[in-house]
């Protein structure tokens, strides 16, 4: 389990450019020689895309809520309505 966690951490450090030159070279070599490991790295990259997707979904909901709330303010609503009248 500990090894698995260390590997996950190492992949993260690679993806975020935090490895030193020697570590990165050794990581790149491992990537070339081990297809299963390369797939794991790809999936961890995709995991980060998914985290961003999740976070943006929450942010968009928050922005929609702000928009709806502002439209309950008479001055704001009147102004917007007039623009698109």
């Amino acid at each position, binding site marked *: 389990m500990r090894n698995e966690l260390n590997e996950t951490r190492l992949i993260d450090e690679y993806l975020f450019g935090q490895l030193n030159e020697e570590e990165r070279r050794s990581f790149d070599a491992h990537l070339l020689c081990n297809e299963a490991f390369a797939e794991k790295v790809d999936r961890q990259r995709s995991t980060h895309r998914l*985290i961003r997707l999740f976070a943006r979904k929450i942010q968009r909901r928050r*922005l929609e809520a702000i928009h709806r709330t502002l439209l309950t303010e008479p001055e704001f609503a009147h102004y917007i309505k007039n623009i698109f009248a």
Partner: protein
Amino acid sequence: MIEPKEDPIVTLYREAFPHFAQMVRALGGTLEEAKDSFHDALLIYLERERAGKLHVHSTPKAYLLGTAKICWLHMRSKASFSLLPDGFDASEFNDPATDAAMEEREQRVLASLERTGKKCLQLLKAFYYDHLSMDDIAARLGFNGRRSATVQKYKCLGKVRENLKTNLKTKEAYAE
């Protein structure tokens, strides 16, 4: 009694959106388009701010209006691309169908994760997207200190990664 301070994003929204809506209207756009592009720009603004990469040279409002205009023009050019006449050679561009399939797949995986691993997603979001410190995360999410939160973060990352593996395999099986 002291009034609670308003969220600065609400204040910025109230000040900037009417100006942007006016700009979009003058360029022939709709309210829905104005809102969508404005939200895209606000997302960029918030993400850069949290990552410490927001460099505002004039005012936050001017920065936001400039970004929103770029987002709107980008959205418009994508829309016109999808309306190109038959026979137009579009091979040099990304295939919108492939992009859509990818997005659909990601949305499906995300929906499954939101049902089974929401706590993990919240922890990962707090660290990677909100850029909170591990001490902050430990306090907010109830871990016994930063060390415990850090271990859990890597466990969660591995868990989501393996979930992705299972989901992709299922998807490939469907495609066969």
